[in-house]
């Protein structure tokens, strides 16, 4: 855990393993589309495979799991506020959608 700054030397095998895992999870997420899973199953599988792949890339390929906690938090915490943006815009988009439906219903009726 306590490493010198430039000490990012790791056995090359770990990269090959992660490479393989990324292939596996990419194939799995492709199969989600190939077999045309729909609804909640589709969305949850897509999100799970996406997060696993992102986690593997960031932690191993980008060496984050070997970085110091101060750097990890400085990088990972700010993007969390983007989740708030996602939430706000989802509410806003739902509202826009309903407003449009209402408007088109009126123009069609009138």
């Amino acid at each position, binding site marked *: *855990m*306590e490493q*010198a*700054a*430039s000490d*990012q*030397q*790791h056995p*090359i095998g770990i*990269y*090959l393993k*992660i*490479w393989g895992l*990324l*292939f596996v999870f*990419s194939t799995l*997420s*492709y199969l*989600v*589309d*190939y077999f*045309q899973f729909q609804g909640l199953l*589709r*969305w949850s599988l*897509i*999100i799970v*495979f*996406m997060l696993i*792949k*992102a986690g593997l*890339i*960031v932690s*191993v*390929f*980008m*060496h984050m799991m070997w*970085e*110091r*906690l*101060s*750097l990890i*938090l*400085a*990088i990972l915490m*700010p*993007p969390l506020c*983007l989740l708030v*943006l*996602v939430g706000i*815009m*989802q509410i*806003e*988009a*739902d509202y*826009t*959608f309903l407003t*449009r*439906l209402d408007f*088109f219903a009126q123009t069609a009726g009138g």
Partner: protein
Amino acid sequence: MDNGTMTGTMSVTRTEALARDWSSDREAFPVHWGKAMMWIFLVSDTFIFTVFLVGYMTVRISATEPWPSASEVFALHIGGHELPLLLIAIMTFVLISSSGTMAMAVNYGYQRNRRMTAALMLATALLGASFVGMQAFEWTKLITEEGVRPWGNPMGAAQFGATFFMITGFHGMHVSAGVIYLLVVAIKVLKGHYEAKGNYEVVEIAGLYWHFVDLVWVFIFAFFYLW
């Protein structure tokens, strides 16, 4: 007074180390300055890409016309079979492989193996360039055969084209810039530019950028192509 040094002893826990890093008037991130700056740039780039994806989410939710099915729009006809998203899947594997070769290039850099480092970086750049090539093919097919435009398309919601060209275009631009970046660093490695100091962190920093481009693709693949 050296309770600030992070080479510390085994009695220091991770949380204590965090407090020490952030306290007192000194540098917070004990890493190469270039690496810290690259990470800060990548965090800001994360915000840009997320804003694009959130914009895409917003127009897709609020569109009253049906959203075109990416599975059908991006299907390829090969030998009478319609294979959904085939080209996109190949592009995904190519980009992941380029990330793999890049990670190994960083590793060989730290082993001071100039030849292998440069060779793997050139392989990464080549895979990246082929990714951009396939993207150009995809755009051409979409524009000329499917008739997709930023302001409309025959399949459904008009916003499909605008978000598609914006998001994948911005990502493709990142890949193209990355290819140039990698070529520059690879040539410098070959010339022995980093040999004097024995400092190959430049390769790792270039790698951070490249892996980030791959990372963004993971999200685009999930939200734009699969959703």
